């Protein structure tokens, strides 16, 4: 199937497949898939269990270009086993990140320094619930491989995380997402560690009703994470808008792009811990309590207002580092 790049630009990011997202965010017709469906590298474990398999194992990875930058893309497909990661798709994700690092090192070797306008870029489009339980042990180990590589990419290769698809970035993918230099989301974006059902089971339905969509949205959703400073860009839901946001930042020096990192230094440990202490001290019970602390008056309206309105009135957690 031939993908029409121009048509993709106005398409809803939320409704797009993993392959469409990968393809549409890069410069026109530059995306080349690694270990694509034609290679038929399926999960041997799903097969043994008699489950359906996909030829790409539910992930699209590859390399393309944005301006002069080689861009390494991981795009998860939430429609296949919840986008969850196992041995094959997990290896595809972790090794794509590794290839970005290898490319940086090769450029450094060749040119001495890596110019700002040519440095490799890493983009992960999240749509996953975390570890694929059918092959849980391999999935767990894969997450650590990704985390170590993301740590290695720091101050070398910008790692841009995106959430705005059906599943969000959940389970262990939640922290893989927030380890990024920059996090971009549309209003469908969600980031969390524990799924709603498990929280309900743990704290009781009175405190957390997993069927209450508004509650889930304001707890894990993009607007709350934007107020907290976990999401850096809250944007409109088209592939073209995501692409434009990325295109506008890639030529910036690494030191500037990494200013929005959320983790990775003793200073950030202390800064994040302050929020934890504040939450305990003020005995917050709901996201709205935290929104109020950061200066938002109209907390009941925040979920309902248009994105434009929200962005014009919202007060965010001030950052020190």
């Amino acid at each position, binding site marked *: 199937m031939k993908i029409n790049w121009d048509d993709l630009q106005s398409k809803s990011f939320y409704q797009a497949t993993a392959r469409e997202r990968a393809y549409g965010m890069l410069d026109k017709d530059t995306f*080349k898939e*690694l270990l694509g469906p034609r290679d038929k590298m399926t999960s041997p474990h799903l097969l043994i269990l008699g489950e359906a398999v996909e030829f790409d194992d539910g992930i699209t990875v590859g390399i393309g270009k944005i301006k002069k930058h080689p861009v390494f893309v991981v795009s998860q497909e939430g429609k296949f086993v919840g986008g969850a990661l196992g041995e094959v798709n997990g290896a595809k994700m972790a090794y794509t990140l590794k*290839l970005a690092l290898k490319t940086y090192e090769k450029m450094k070797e060749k040119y001495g320094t890596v110019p700002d306008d040519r440095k*490799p870029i890493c983009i992960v489009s999240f749509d996953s619930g975390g570890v694929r*339980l059918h092959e849980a042990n391999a999935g767990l180990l894969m997450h650590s491989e990704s985390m170590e590589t993301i740590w290695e990419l720091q101050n070398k290769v910008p790692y841009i995380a995106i959430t705005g698809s059906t599943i969000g970035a959940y389970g262990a993918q939640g922290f893989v997402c927030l380890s990024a230099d920059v996090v971009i989301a549309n209003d469908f974006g969600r980031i969390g560690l524990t799924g709603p059902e498990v929280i309900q089971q743990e*704290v009781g339905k009175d405190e957390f009703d997993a069927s209450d969509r508004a509650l889930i949205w304001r707890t894990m959703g993009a607007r709350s994470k934007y107020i907290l400073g976990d999401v850096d860009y809250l944007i409109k839901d088209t592939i073209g808008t995501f692409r434009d946001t990325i295109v506008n930042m890639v030529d910036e020096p690494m030191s500037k792009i990494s200013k929005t990192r959320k983790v990775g230094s003793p200073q*950030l440990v202390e800064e*994040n*811990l302050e929020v934890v202490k504040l939450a305990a001290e003020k005995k917050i019970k709901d996201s709205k309590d935290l929104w109020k602390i950061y200066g938002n008056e109209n907390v009941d309206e925040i979920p309902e207002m248009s994105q434009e309105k929200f962005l014009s009135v919202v007060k965010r957690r001030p950052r020190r580092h």
Partner: protein
Amino acid sequence: MIKSLIGKTDEAIQLIFDKDTFQENVIGNTRLDKDLAPPVMVGQAMIDGEVCSVLANNSKRPNPRFRVVYSGILGMEEAYKFSQAMYATIEADKERPKDKKRPIVLLIDTPGNSPGKIEEIVGMTKGTASYQFAIEDARLAGHPVIGLIIGRAVSGGFLCHGLLSDRILALPAEYGTIVHVMPTTSIAVITKIPLERLNELVKTNPVFASGAEYFYDLGGIDEMVKRPEDMRAAIIKSIKEVRALRKQGKEDQLGIWHRGVVGAERGGRQKRMEAIKKMQEEYEKMLPELI
């Protein structure tokens, strides 16, 4: 005769480190806040006459501020206190040469990260990510990081507290150790695959089975420690090995990526290796136009 060390971290500390040398909340000149993260047991001790950092948790101490942090569950304060301990360790040895950095020993007995509402609002995710980055920072500085599973090493708890170590050791299942993402019974419910079938498949495929031995087959654990009495000697040996490999510049024989290679040698995660090899080949063909 020890049957299990689950919830008995203090006993494990006695067995592993030089007699009565563990000082809680002390690392070099840093004094960690004793009121922060009550379940966390961090500090320094001597092992074989050498000072080391100990990062462990005491399942008997809940966190009064966070109701879902009990019985060994690691919450946000816990993850950040572990991170502080890592950075305090790096700070304590900043003047020492790379091959003389103090070892860091992680004692692992956790059923997971805190699945609470407040944790989702504030960000358990960032806590666990911070700790993982801090472990890598310590490894980069030259500290040998050894993880030892004495009890439960479950899912996100194991991901943040242990999996990124240079070397991971584990007591076998006969001492009650539990290593998995979730029990096979829960996997059966969620995947809707009959438990009997899963139990049958476990015999030939370690990929979803619960237990340290299965993780060993996949390369998730470097070495099994036969008995609790052997833990001390196993840690001392691992510290020496890690130092020797670092000195020879063989960093690639340590840590999580190396365990992927080890797993393939033991017959597990073959497809992972195959996928990586194929991607590398495709990448090399594309490389000239990339740089």
